[in-house]
């Protein structure tokens, strides 16, 4: 069933079949290593694509329900994820945010925001099975 989702992406974008398969394999690899999210910059490096190309492919996967975008608020000093939001409009309500590692309230300048894609586990597994 989910395999059909991957096939449906490829049928919509036949020229991108190779890249779609590579990203699907990458996602499967991440799941195998116990990771539940795809960081576009890391995936781009692995797949030897630009970050924009990777984001474009991930957007297609998201439309198919294989991944789901979210924003992570990361403490710049300790590089730890402090909170996540599914919509960017929710980010402003998170600030100022308390960081247990720094024992401080962080404002926008103290944190970075990363766009990542949460893997929908079963859907992704089925898609690459």
């Amino acid at each position, binding site marked *: 069933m989910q395999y059909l989702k991957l096939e449906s992406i490829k049928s*919509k*974008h036949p*020229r*991108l079949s190779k*890249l779609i398969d590579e990203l699907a394999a990458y996602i499967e690899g991440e799941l195998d290593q116990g990771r539940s999210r795809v960081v576009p910059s890391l995936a781009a490096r692995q797949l030897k694509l*630009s*970050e*924009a*190309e990777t*984001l*474009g*492919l*991930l*957007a*297609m996967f998201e439309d198919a329900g294989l991944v789901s*975008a979210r924003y992570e608020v990361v403490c710049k000093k300790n590089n730890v994820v402090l909170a996540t939001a599914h*919509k*960017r*409009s*929710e*980010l*402003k309500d998170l*600030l*100022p945010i308390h960081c247990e590692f720094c024992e401080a309230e962080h*404002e*926008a*300048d103290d*944190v*970075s*925001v990363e*766009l990542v894609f949460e893997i929908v586990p079963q859907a992704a597994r089925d898609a690459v099975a």
Partner: protein
Amino acid sequence: MPSPKKQFCPKGFYDKGKEVFAQALKIEDADLRHEAIRAALRYYSADVTQDRRLLVAIIVLFVLVAGTIVLAFVKLSFFSAAAVILSAFTFFSLLIGVMLRSLGYISETSLLRIWKESFKVLREIFKTKEKDG
């Protein structure tokens, strides 16, 4: 008044958006380019609601200023009308300043500076008007 905490995202996030957007424009495959641009816009999309609120408020204020200009030129002499228009612009700038502050775009210090400078302008206008009168 609360601090301007609605400053939403670190500047680096927007820079990243710009960078991704520029990369997206260079993608040769049209489908992938379209998807990449759509994805790059995620770095900007959340503030649309707020920007729209701001835009509507600015349009309303602009209409009020435009109305004041028309009315002033119809009812008053040229120089009085010019003074009224300058005052109106200054006053509405102050309102925009308050609006920007309440939306969290500027700090209290910036707002106070705007008010201070605006009052200076208003004082000069009224001084000139007193001299003319």
